[in-house]
């Protein structure tokens, strides 16, 4: 059985990318974006994935269809101060890739 799921990432130019994301490598959305080079290096995941910058902010488009994990306090605190925040904002680094995310659609927020 494949350990990959399909997720859709809309880059900062509005281009949709349907990518295979592995569920067995402890990866998160931010790391998938970097792995597929969907955002220029140095503009995403600056803090390394510790919810200490908002460079991986993304908008979750179908949270009603896909079971996205709940926001943790660190993520909430960072989004409190970040720019371009919407109701569906999340930090990509805090969304681990799991089988439950099959079909997830996220859009990268503008670079700060």
């Amino acid at each position, binding site marked *: 059985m494949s350990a990959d799921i399909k997720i859709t990432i809309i880059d900062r130019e509005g281009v949709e990318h349907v990518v295979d994301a592995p569920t067995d490598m402890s990866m998160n959305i931010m790391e998938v974006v970097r792995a597929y080079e969907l955002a220029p*290096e140095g503009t995403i995941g600056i803090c390394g994935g*510790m919810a200490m910058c908002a460079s991986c902010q993304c908008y979750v488009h179908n949270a009603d269809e896909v079971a996205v994990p709940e926001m943790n306090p660190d993520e*909430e605190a960072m989004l*409190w*101060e970040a*720019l371009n*925040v919407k109701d569906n904002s999340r930090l990509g680094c805090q969304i681990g890739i799991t089988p439950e995310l099959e079909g997830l659609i996220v859009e990268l927020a503008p670079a700060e």
Partner: protein
Amino acid sequence: MIETDIIIIGAGPTGLFAVFEAGLLKLKCHLIDGLPQPGGQLTELYPKKPIFDIPGYPSVGAAELVDNLMEQIKQFQPGFTLNEVAETIEKQEDGTFIVTTNKGTKHCGKAVAIAGGLGSFEPRKPDLENLAFYEDKGVEYFVKKPEMFAGKKIVIAGGGDSALDWSIYLADIAAEVFLVHRRNEFRGALDSVEKVQALKNQGKINLVTPAEIVELKGTAKLEAVVVEREGQREEVACDYFIPLFGLTPKLGPIADWGLEIEKNAIKVNNALDYQTNIPGIYAIGDINTYPGKLKLILCGFHEATLMCQSVYNMLNPGKKYVLKYTTVSGINGFDGTRKEAEKAVVKSIE
């Protein structure tokens, strides 16, 4: 003037370990860091988090690793300039470098190693047209001199502790304070939230929520901001606008040193010694970039080691250095201490 062999900019794990490797080569180091204590991100951002990929440590706390590094380099007596940001660098005719901090402290070194990690944390700036034009002309990101706001009309934006605290403080000295936040809720100390509520009730703080600043206005200096609330725009006359949206990591002054920057990091020659495009200036750890770069502490340690060898060769041209193992040769500290493996006792048995 502080004089040393290697000026290390950044006192995170990579910068600290560079002191050890330099010490083995009899090179003295002085570290500069904008933070008030050594350790970089490890101490400042996640001191209690465990790190699992330091060789020899199945798990080590970030602060514990820093403590161990400090213990390891103690015998090499590094100097520290803390709470100051390296602002300028000048290369002298004799090949040495003068690094001056934002507080005017001057350091002279034969080589410079930039180990700045994420860089320096700078205020997160709102995406507003002409924001840069109004900086220092009404737009301030810090409240450095509270007295300059006395009797003025001030607009503060933000929803965290800083926005709350400064609204409270300035409410007493300013002519008028507007606190604008995009949500109705504030995230801060309960005490601060309650104080703001009380000051709002007393008419000392004008609370504008949920709202955002969408435009700045003024000719020579800031004269007003435009606040958008529930689709309605309103102009608010003011002398100062203070956006307080936290900090974000940037390269900082280093970006203006003439170094080759790529992907928001300093490009180095990793095939040789992590030197930048300026001979004598190196970049090690998370702040550098090269093909195959991995931002890991253990990679920073490796880069620091090769950097020190390169500095040694640069300062001692033609001198042959034979790599020694500390297990065999021990360590001679600059403080007169010596560490070495215990010698086996040779004794005949009668």
